[in-house]
């Protein structure tokens, strides 16, 4: 579908860069931080990394009907500070978010305060100098930061998910500025996420997950997979987080070394986490969080997984509801868990290949 770009939507602003940045502030185009003024030349350069016409619609807002064209995505990518070569990741991420199962309107509008968490996997992470290593979620890497920031600017400027108006997050989370990491391949004993997703060899992917706040899991005393994963499962099942929703778990290399030394593969890890991330029904009732509807959904008709145990509510419906990623610096027993915004199946993580079209018309 093509949408015409109106010439009237070009603004003639002062040449002084600071004045231009202030102009962007005054128009309400920022996330609170300064943006790169989206000059025509910079946007045109960004567009050279996408083969389709700039008017092509890549994402639509189910509620308002606002449509994000490749052009609009490029304008916001420039503002976020992206290099043009990052653009295919952004297009793929928006394509993934546009899948109905992701339900980006719900996750962006909700009091839950989630942010689209992006995991980039595959060789492109190296091509773009993305960070999959030390200070993974922290500042300092241009690609990680600006790719994630672009998604927020698109939500603000294109889809008008305005804080306090259409974005009703009770507290929000810092990931709403930017929430993007690369999967670590160095020292990773398992197939990469993009390989597990069955994309062709050499094709990178981006996975989007409507994530809540980041939860650090510290365990420097663990020496077995059960100890490492037991502490992670405990975080996944804490009273504030346990739901039928999906999970993102980012395993620190130090923890991965313990697990892989025991010969565990990725599926075993996910099955163990699913098995151990649960709360007893009576305990959930004790804190007022038990819902018979959720329990029935998980346990009725023989259950959604053979690993389920009676009178326990597990996190998610099956082990495959866990996105397992390796990332972070060599030193430190710090993994992380990111809970889903969705308390059930209102938003399901989606992935897309980057820069290629598979099985397209």
């Amino acid at each position, binding site marked *: 579908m093509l949408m015409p770009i109106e010439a009237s939507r070009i603004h003639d602003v002062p040449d002084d860069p600071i004045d*231009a940045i202030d102009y962007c502030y005054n128009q309400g*185009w920022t996330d609170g931080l300064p943006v790169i003024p*989206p000059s025509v030349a910079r*946007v045109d350069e960004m567009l050279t990394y996408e083969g389709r016409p700039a008017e092509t619609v890549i994402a639509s807002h189910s509620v308002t009907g*606002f449509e994000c064209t490749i052009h609009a995505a490029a*304008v916001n990518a420039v503002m976020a500070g992206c290099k043009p070569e990052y653009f295919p990741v952004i297009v793929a991420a928006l394509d993934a978010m546009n899948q109905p199962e992701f*339900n980006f309107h719900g996750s962006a509008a*909700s009091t839950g305060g989630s942010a689209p968490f992006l995991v980039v996997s595959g060789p492109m992470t190296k091509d773009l100098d993305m960070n999959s290593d030390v200070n993974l979620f922290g500042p300092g890497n241009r690609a990680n930061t600006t790719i994630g920031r672009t998604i927020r600017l698109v939500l603000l400027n*294109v889809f008008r998910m305005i804080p306090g108006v259409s974005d009703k997050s009770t507290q929000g989370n810092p990931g709403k500025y930017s929430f993007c990491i690369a999967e670590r391949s160095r020292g990773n004993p398992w197939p990469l996420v993009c390989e597990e997703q069955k994309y062709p060899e050499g094709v990178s992917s981006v996975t989007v997950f409507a994530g809540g706040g980041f939860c650090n899991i510290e365990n420097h005393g663990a020496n077995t997979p059960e100890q490492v994963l037991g502490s992670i499962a405990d975080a996944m099942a804490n009273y504030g987080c346990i739901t039928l929703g999906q999970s993102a778990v980012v395993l620190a290399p130090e923890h991965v070394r313990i697990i892989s030394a025991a010969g565990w593969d990725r599926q075993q890890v996910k099955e163990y986490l699913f098995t151990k991330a649960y709360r007893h029904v009576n305990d959930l009732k004790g804190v007022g969080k038990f819902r018979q509807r959720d329990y029935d959904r998980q346990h009725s008709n023989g259950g959604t997984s053979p690993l389920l145990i009676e009178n326990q509510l597990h996190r998610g419906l099956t082990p495959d509801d866990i996105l397992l990623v390796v990332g972070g610096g060599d030193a430190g027993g710090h993994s992380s868990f990111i809970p889903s915004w*969705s308390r059930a199946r209102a938003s399901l993580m989606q992935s897309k290949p980057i820069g290629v079209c598979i099985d397209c018309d």
Partner: protein
Amino acid sequence: MLLYDPTVTGPEYNYKRAAAIQSIEGKKIGILENGKLNAIKMLEETAYLFEQKHGCSIEPIFSKNNAGAPVPHETLSLAAENIDFLITGLGD
């Protein structure tokens, strides 16, 4: 310096508000619940007040499978065929 506008123009809708019903006495009420904790309880209490004070009758409850997504068009169409007005609200 020439800058592109990062926003987009939205579609124009030709929606109109439905005419207000003149009286709620004896009308059929629909309840649309969003699946969240306490939603049904709260809406049923509200509907009960209409029943007691205005002689309204309560039709079967309409439910959303996904609290975070807009109500499906088919659900609203079905409701519109069978009720005079709909009450809804959030759970939690």
